[in-house]
């Protein structure tokens, strides 16, 4: 078994090599490389397959009880400072390896169908492979610096992939927003990392935790400072895992192609934040203040995301807010000390949310045949409906995902979410209440999504809905107009602007079609874990907890007595509220007994708050974006007017005096020498006298 560990570094390196070969090919022999489309995709997918096999082998070896393995080399040094890099394989990283490689593998297969007609098909595979490499490197990092390195690299891949269709303006804005928002988080992570290094002289997770505890206990370091460092580090996960207040980038990131929304912005990269909190658990768990901040951040984010998801019409945006909300659950779980539960939810969520996103991609792919290649139309649920008839596989898998996320047993999401809620109730009932209500909202908006997409009758040809969407978009672009006073010219301009970036293979039909096998196969494959994977972590036989638990935590043995009444109350209450949510959704969107628009009109304040994402984007835009622009302009003004102005003034004076000097006819060189000599003399004498 030892050999697997010696070659475990191949896990991130293999996809990197794949990405590099394709990347160099694209730069050097662009036309030729692009013409070999499927050759490259098979190459990249098979490399990912090899990586996945290796990951499973590692996982199996860890599961059968191999001790953790760490391999490090000296990376940078100066004086007595040493910085090591390497890889570490333990239970947590083995689990993450399996999750990441399986999702990445399936997403890569799916990509072949989804991107089949895209001219940048090969480039997309190169990016996917590069991302997988960075993500795999992240999960096997042995210390904080290496995590930071890969943390930034996955951020860069996310930037490249969000901006993949760079001809679209929203994509261009979104990728920059994602990178900069994440840099704000990284800023905190960097400061926290430096602070922790300053007081513990180590970047190693376990060592930091231990020394920090000693320092705080001995009084050498005040608890408040330790908490400050911990919270600064936590800023990194806040940005990466889209927690309030740095969540704003995630919904916009949906501008990227759907496969990466599934891989990066649902299953893996956004979970990296949760992973880091888990890795830093030895540090955080000794600092109650930090744990509280983490838990409440997660709790609020869970609610915030769900409350916004209710009113979204864009299917991907809805799923994005739901991801944010689910990540909030995980963070809350870790914050209340439920290490196992948080990571369990990470795993189940990775599978069912990846499936949901891929399902939404399949829907969009089908819709594009009817409404054209415009994300505003192809992703709007108001134009969908009745799709179950046309795309049955997508519909069934989407339903499975919806049931899983809503927390209906025996689907995966029930077990993990219930475990988080149970642990939260023990820690803080108020927090539990928020989480519990959010579970109801989750069931409601997910079924709203399912019903309006797959049930009812198809609305794709509905001209009036299209018109509404068009006006909404124009208003968002800043054309102020009422529906009655449309200036056709402006409309033409705006329409032209997006027609340009249709990378069209447009054949318009009247009915959406089911996606090809390359897209439906990953959906079916992901449906299996979405249904079953929760069973590894039931309270009755918690194999998951036995494998993954916080360092130093004592785990009850398998088959230990389960507190059945407690399980039934907790589980029952979450199922209950989920059912209420589902019923409400079916009344509104399936049977149309209740008109949602009428409810919205009755509570305009709440409706607008949700619809406008709590106005957070607008506030950030006004304060930070415009604020920094204004500040920058002012600084430049000072630079060019004041600083440079003085210089030019001085120059003018010199030239002027230079002109007058000519009249002395004593030659400049001599004068220059004289001044130099006098000054030197003066200096030496001066310092001789005073020194």
């Amino acid at each position, binding site marked *: 078994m030892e050999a697997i560990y010696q070659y475990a570094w191949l896990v991130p390196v293999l996809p990197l090599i794949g990405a590099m070969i394709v990347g160099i090919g694209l730069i050097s022999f662009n036309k030729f490389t692009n013409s070999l489309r499927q050759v490259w995709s098979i190459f990249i997918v098979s490399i990912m397959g090899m990586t996945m096999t290796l990951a499973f082998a590692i996982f199996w070896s860890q599961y059968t009880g191999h001790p953790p393995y760490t391999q490090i080399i000296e990376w940078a040094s100066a004086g007595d400072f040493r910085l090591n890099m390497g890889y570490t394989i333990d239970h947590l990283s083995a689990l993450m390896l399996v999750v990441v490689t399986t999702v990445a593998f399936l997403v890569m297969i799916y990509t072949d169908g989804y991107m089949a007609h895209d001219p940048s098909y090969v480039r997309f595979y190169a990016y996917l492979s590069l991302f997988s490499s960075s993500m795999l490197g992240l999960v096997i990092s042995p210390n904080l610096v290496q995590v930071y390195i890969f943390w930034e690299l996955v951020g860069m891949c996310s930037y490249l992939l969000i901006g993949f269709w760079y001809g679209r303006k929203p994509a261009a804005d979104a990728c920059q927003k994602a990178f900069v928002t994440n840099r704000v988080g990284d800023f905190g992570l960097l400061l926290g990392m430096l602070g922790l290094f*300053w007081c513990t002289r180590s970047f190693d997770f376990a060592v930091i935790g231990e020394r920090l505890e000693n320092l705080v206990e001995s009084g050498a370091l005040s608890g408040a400072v330790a908490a400050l460092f911990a919270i600064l580090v936590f800023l990194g996960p806040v940005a990466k895992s889209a927690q309030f207040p740095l969540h704003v980038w995630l919904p916009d990131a949906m501008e990227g192609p759907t496969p990466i929304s599934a891989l990066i912005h649902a299953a893996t990269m956004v979970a990296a934040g949760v992973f880091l909190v888990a890795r830093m658990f030895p540090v955080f768990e000794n600092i109650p203040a930090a744990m509280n901040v983490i838990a409440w951040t997660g709790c609020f984010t869970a609610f915030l995301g769900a409350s916004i998801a209710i009113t979204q019409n864009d299917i991907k945006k809805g799923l994005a807010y739901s991801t944010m909300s689910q990540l909030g659950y995980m963070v809350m779980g870790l914050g209340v000390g439920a290490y196992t539960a948080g990571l369990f939810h990470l795993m189940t969520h990775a599978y069912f949310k990846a499936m949901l996103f891929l399902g939404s991609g399949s829907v969009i792919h089908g819709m594009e045949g009817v409404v054209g290649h415009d994300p505003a139309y192809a992703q709007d649920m108001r134009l969908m409906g009745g799709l179950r008839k046309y795309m049955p596989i997508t519909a069934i898998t989407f339903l499975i995902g919806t049931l899983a996320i809503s927390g209906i047993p025996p689907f995966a999401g029930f077990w993990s979410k219930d475990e988080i809620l149970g642990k939260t109730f023990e820690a803080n009932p108020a927090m539990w209440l928020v989480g519990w209500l959010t579970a109801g909202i989750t069931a409601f908006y997910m079924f709203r999504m399912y019903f309006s997409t797959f049930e009812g009758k198809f609305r794709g040809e509905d001209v009036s809905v299209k018109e509404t969407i068009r006006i909404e978009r124009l208003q968002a672009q800043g054309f102020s107009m009422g529906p009655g006073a449309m200036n056709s010219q402006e409309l033409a301009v705006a329409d032209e602007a997006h027609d340009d970036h249709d990378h069209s293979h447009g054949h318009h039909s009247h009915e959406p079609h089911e996606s090809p096998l390359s897209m439906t196969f990953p959906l079916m494959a992901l449906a299996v874990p979405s249904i079953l994977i929760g069973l590894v972590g039931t309270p009755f036989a918690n194999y998951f907890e036995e494998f993954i638990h916080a360092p130093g935590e004592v785990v009850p043995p398998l088959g230990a007595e389960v507190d059945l009444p407690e399980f039934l109350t907790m589980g029952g209450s979450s199922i209950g509220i989920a059912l209420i949510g589902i019923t409400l959704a079916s009344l509104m969107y399936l049977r149309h007994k209740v008109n949602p628009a009428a409810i919205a009109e009755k509570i305009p304040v709440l409706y607008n708050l949700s619809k406008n994402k709590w106005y957070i984007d607008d506030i950030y835009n006004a304060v930070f974006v415009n604020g920094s622009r204004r500040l920058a302009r002012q600084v430049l003004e000072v630079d060019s007017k004041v600083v440079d102005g003085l210089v030019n003034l001085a120059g003018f004076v010199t030239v002027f005096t230079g002109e007058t000097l000519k009249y002395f006819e004593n030659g400049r060189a001599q004068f220059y020498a004289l001044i130099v000599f006098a000054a030197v003399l003066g200096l030496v004498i001066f310092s001789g006298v005073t020194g």
Partner: protein
Amino acid sequence: MLTANFPWLTTSILLPIAASLAIPFLPDKDGKTVRWYALIVGLIDFALIVYAFCNFYDFSSAEMQLRESYTWIPQLDLKWSVGADGLSMPLILLTGFITTLATLAAWPVTWKPRLFYFLMLAMYGGQIAVFAVQDMLLFFLAWELELIPVYLLLAIWGGKKRQYAATKFILYTAGGSLFILLSSLAMAFYGDTISFDMQTLAEKAYPLKLQLWLYTGFLIAYAIKLPIIPFHTWLPDAHGEATAPVHMLLAGILLKMGGYALIRMNVEMLPDAHATVAPVLVILGVVNIIYAALTSFAQRNLKRKIAYSSISHMGFVILGIVSFTDLGMSGAVLQMVSHGLIGASLFFLVGATYDRTHTLMLDEMGGVGQKMKKIFAMWTICSMASLALPGMSGFVAELMVFVGFATSDAYALPFRVLVVFLAAVGVILTPIYLLSNLREIFYGPENKELAEHQVLVDAEPREIYIISALLVPIIGIGLYPKLLTQIYDAKTMQLTARLRNSLNELTAERKEPEAIALLKSAEVLTAPSLN
């Protein structure tokens, strides 16, 4: 003949200069022979430098090596003496590398090619001389001589405001170098012996007051070159008007002369003054990082934007120099080399973009990524390198400076916290201006007006080659920084040890109870042993 006694450095300085003198006599009709000639001379010289360092330089020693000394004017004690140590060796290598690539980058220059390549080769020798000479007077001469080619390159091949920019450049730098002369003369005449030899000068014991005067003199000159705000305003003008190859030299090498001389003279020769003045420099460094990042963000002219970004990155060099830690000092040298490579690549790309769009105003660009995919890709990679993406050299350098400064015990804790915090703000600002720059040039729907009037061809192999050549060391250092750091860190450690000595003396002398108490409290906090 090819032994350790062979005058390697003198040859590497004089070879390009001698070769440049032959250019007027070359049979050449359309300027094509000259550029090959210049390129080959550049390559030979670079190979010579690499060969000499590989075979006759001991990387584990902090001493001055490959020394040569010939009496030039005995009356003045002026000697032609050159040598290399851990401080100058990486920069000499950088010079050879960047200048050779800049010659290749100058391929499309058709206006007065003979004069152009003559100046480029003269620059080559002049730049190496600045880093290699070990005599103060000679240093001053080399410093001044290297200005003339730059001035001419700016004034003849520059943009529309080239006269203004070139004049500003020469006035500024020549004005600054006056202070070098002043300080060197004062150092030479101080004490019993008159000597211009750098090592002799470094060993003299100057009283603190004189040190401070000398320090200020040098600092003004090097603050202009590096540049340190508020002595920076020549730089956006000079950079804004220069052509791409000159640009690569300005950003890649000339700025590093400031950093190099700052370490060589201010830090190495006047350590006591450095220990006293350091807090001021810390503040200047932080101001550099933030102020320049903000001005860069507001700039609408591409060249000036990237020029300001250079200033911002130089702030990290200053912070490293004043950190009084091995790591920080090592990071400062690394940042100089790293920025040399990254800055050169970015400026080359600016030139390549301008060749196609014929505008530098961001407002007139947009959406050119559709036609120029490879240039877009290279821009993205180099911007990522510049915003300190891990895996590239900039990240390692900045990280080393950050860790070095954060763990430095030379400053009181609150001061350090504030500085690290502000420097980290720069980490947020850098991607803001670099990525919005990328967005404004390449992203978005195609700019029809630009596409109609200009031929937006994609990168040619020569351009891809130049960028790849620059990326190899950028990524190599990023992946395994010891590649570079281990060849010079004997020197930086020796430097830091000397500095710390001065620092300790200073704190002991002053006997400021406050400072000591703060230092002690910091020590308590840093107390846990390394094991």
